[in-house]
């Protein structure tokens, strides 16, 4: 091996972009409110998602109060309980996680990480946020309409979703479906931006295989969301037709309160197919950005290149493709043909392979790394543990014979909270601790961060781990009051009360986090441009927080992949992606 000067690339002229292409805000309103800058839109998305997410957090408190201490709180009746679970689920999955990962992190990180000045369609990007905000407002308004929000469960299964026995039959369900339709329209506008920006606005030298895994995750998830959300759109439109115009897409012949209804012949299973054709990719729409982000967090904070980068990319693509042919594993008890059950159980087990590859690679990245137990790293480690736990119970539920008895029990609730509730939230929180310095120029307080992590991580485990046991006993989900039954042992009540107390504590710990966000914005330690000594482009911006247009006069040029940490012989333990090589080791020259 011989080191030779590598001058051919040193003089590469940086790519330049004509300034006229960039939109320049002219007033306070267009700079901070109706802004077309992806960074401002990202913050708007994140704040809105967090605000509506806090509503969902409070709803979970109310549910836990009822489950832990049934009969104590007279203001929570059975109808309200159903409304709480519905709104909690829908908000958390769609309006918080999807919006935060794609609208929030996607908008902030994609242009910066690929070396672009902004998204390619800034105006459409702005519209995307405002339509999303409208969807959130329509959703929140259901708390104040006659009859309240719908209590159909987050899956909104017909026929019960639009029958009078379900709370929110008047207005709640109509507004919920309208809000979903708006969300999908808004998301499609944003999604077009994320995809085209990655394809078209990458800076010079940024090949696909040099993209940070965060961008790979968000990019693939966006493509999946663009193709899967239409299924929810179609299902919502058809159900709105059933509810408002009296059609019978999903509604079979029914007798309600002794009255023959006007419906007849419809297929509730059709709705389930459409819903889960969206619903299962949705799990990975939330998970893939989390996979990508956590890869970058682990690599940066363990000062080691990600293990098996190529395999990580392939696994993301494979998961994205496979996730479209597993949807009916949510429908094992719907009475479908057993052969279908066999097919979907097989595909479900196959998708575990690329997922497991990713887990191994994270662990192998940590192996003999220089692990810094910073707050983002703690959350990343917390993610791996909760994700493995939730993934393993997913293998249980993916098998038809195991799923049938566990269906509609607390085991399912515990599984999906672990795998797509707690695990992605761990990544969201870790990512906020990681990128907050870039967004604000100040560090989040470390002590508060560690307190927040330990309470959240241990607390979430204490809530959801015992929940598996309740599920195995047969405790059903979505029950306002489980009452007295032979299989309800005293330990069920004790555990429920325990979990409720822990849930309140975990929720309160999030207030510490919110306080930290505000406090550090004013009083936090100034971070400088690259406090984590990271390689990716967003840390190399000339200003922190990045100015309008992200880069100075010239766009960065990328000379290397995103994971040059602890390179032997290098001066520092990281080499930024845009640092030109001065010498190059030519293998084989000496041999």
């Amino acid at each position: 091996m011989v080191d030779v000067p590598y001058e051919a690339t040193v003089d590469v002229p940086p790519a330049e972009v004509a300034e006229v292409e960039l939109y320049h805000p002219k007033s306070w309103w267009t700079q901070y409110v109706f802004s077309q800058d992806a960074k401002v839109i990202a913050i708007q998305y994140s704040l809105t998602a967090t605000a509506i997410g806090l509503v969902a957090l409070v709803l979970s408190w109310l549910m836990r109060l009822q489950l832990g201490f049934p009969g104590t709180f007279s203001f929570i009746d059975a109808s309200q309980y159903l409304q709480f679970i519905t709104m909690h689920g829908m908000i958390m999955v769609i309006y918080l996680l999807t919006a935060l990962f794609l609208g929030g992190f996607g908008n902030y990180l994609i242009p910066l990480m690929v070396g672009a000045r902004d998204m390619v369609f800034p105006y459409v990007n702005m519209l995307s946020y405002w339509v999303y905000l409208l969807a959130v407002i329509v959703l929140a308004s259901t708390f104040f309409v006659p009859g309240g929000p719908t209590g159909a469960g987050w899956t909104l299964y017909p026929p019960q979703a639009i029958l009078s026995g379900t709370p929110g039959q008047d207005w709640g369900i109509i507004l919920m479906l309208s809000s979903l339709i708006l969300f999908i329209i808004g998301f499609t506008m944003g999604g077009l931006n994320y995809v085209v920006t990655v394809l078209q606005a990458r800076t010079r030298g940024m090949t696909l295989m040099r993209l940070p895994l965060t961008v790979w995750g968000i990019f693939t998830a966006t493509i999946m969301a663009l193709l899967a959300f239409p299924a929810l759109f179609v299902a919502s439109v058809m159900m709105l037709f059933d509810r408002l115009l009296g059609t019978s897409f999903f509604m079979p012949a029914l007798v309600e309160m002794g009255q023959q209804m006007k419906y007849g012949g419809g297929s509730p299973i059709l709705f389930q197919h459409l819903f889960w054709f969206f619903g299962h990719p949705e799990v990975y729409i939330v998970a893939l950005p989390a996979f990508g982000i956590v890869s970058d967090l682990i690599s940066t904070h363990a000062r080691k290149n990600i293990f098996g980068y190529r395999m990580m990319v392939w696994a993301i693509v494979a998961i994205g493709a496979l996730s479209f042919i597993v949807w009916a594993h949510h429908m094992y008890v719907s009475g479908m043909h057993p052969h279908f059950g066999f097919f979907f159980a097989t595909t479900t087990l196959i998708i575990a392979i690329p997922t497991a590859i990713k887990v191994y690679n994270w662990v192998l990245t940590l192996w003999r790394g220089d692990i810094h137990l910073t707050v983002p790293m703690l959350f990343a480690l917390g993610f791996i543990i909760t994700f493995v736990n939730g993934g393993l119970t997913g293998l249980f539920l993916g098998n038809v014979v195991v799923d049938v008895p566990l269906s509609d029990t607390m085991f399912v609730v515990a599984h999906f909270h672990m795998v797509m509730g707690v695990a992605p939230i761990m990544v969201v929180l870790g990512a906020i601790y990681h990128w907050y310095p870039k967004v604000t120029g100040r560090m989040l307080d470390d002590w508060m961060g560690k307190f927040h992590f330990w309470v959240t991580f241990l607390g979430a485990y204490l809530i959801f781990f015992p929940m598996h046991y309740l599920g195995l006993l047969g405790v059903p989900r979505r029950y306002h009051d489980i009452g007295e039954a032979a299989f309800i042992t005293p330990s069920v009540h004790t555990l429920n009360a325990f979990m409720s107390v822990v849930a309140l504590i975990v929720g309160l710990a999030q207030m510490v986090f919110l306080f930290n966000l505000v406090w550090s914005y004013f009083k936090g330690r100034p971070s400088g441009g690259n406090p984590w000594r990271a390689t990716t482009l967003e840390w190399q911006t000339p200003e922190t927080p990045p100015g309008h247009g992200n880069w100075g006069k010239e766009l960065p040029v990328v000379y290397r992949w995103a994971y040059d940490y602890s390179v032997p012989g290098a001066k520092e333990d990281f080499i930024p992606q845009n640092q030109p090589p001065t010498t190059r080791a030519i293998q084989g020259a000496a041999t």
Partner: protein
Amino acid sequence: MSAIVLFMAVIAVIVGWWLSQQRLTAKPWLEEGSIDDFPGTGAMTVPAAKLGLGVFLAVATSLFALFISAYSMRMDMVDWRALPVPALLWFNTGVLVLSSVAMQWAYVSAQRNNMDGVIFGICAGGASAIIFLIGQLLAWRQLSAAGYFVASNPANSFFYMITAAHGLHLTGGLVALGRTTAKVWRGAEMPQLRLSVELCVIYWHFLLLVWLVVLGLLTGWTDDFVDICRRLLS
């Protein structure tokens, strides 16, 4: 769900083919410093708007494929009664074909720097698209006058819903076409105009294709074809 799964398979092939051109087997950790060494792996050179339209067409196709999937699942139920096809739909189809031809005219004229041809093409294309939409509304009125209401049978419900979805997409196209016309009005130069016209033309042809598939399905002409496919699959 076979229509949407088939569409997803097509998308998977396209994405797989494109990814296979992107050197996914490269070892990026060994390729320090190389820039522009591998043509075709950098950012795409297609205009962003065209790429965006392509992605949007994939989303719209997914939407219509899902409508068709739902349609074919629901039509197997016993209460399905196919509805008579208003003769007006033939006329509407003809008008939509004319609309596409006119838009193609505009596109060819734009390539040849013939501004008059562009103006004629987009005006004729827009006008015939509006006539198509009015025709669709009239077809709805004819059907409801004959007692085929939206809720009286699932076949009717699908007819109204899918034609409405198609009509709304065309209305969106008219907005884009309106903006292009406004550009012409303001005296934009041909190079600025060419891309706008091209995007409109692509979208018009796409909607014509969707309409032909939807028409074949709603009128039952494709039933034999669907039947053959089903037998092949089973």
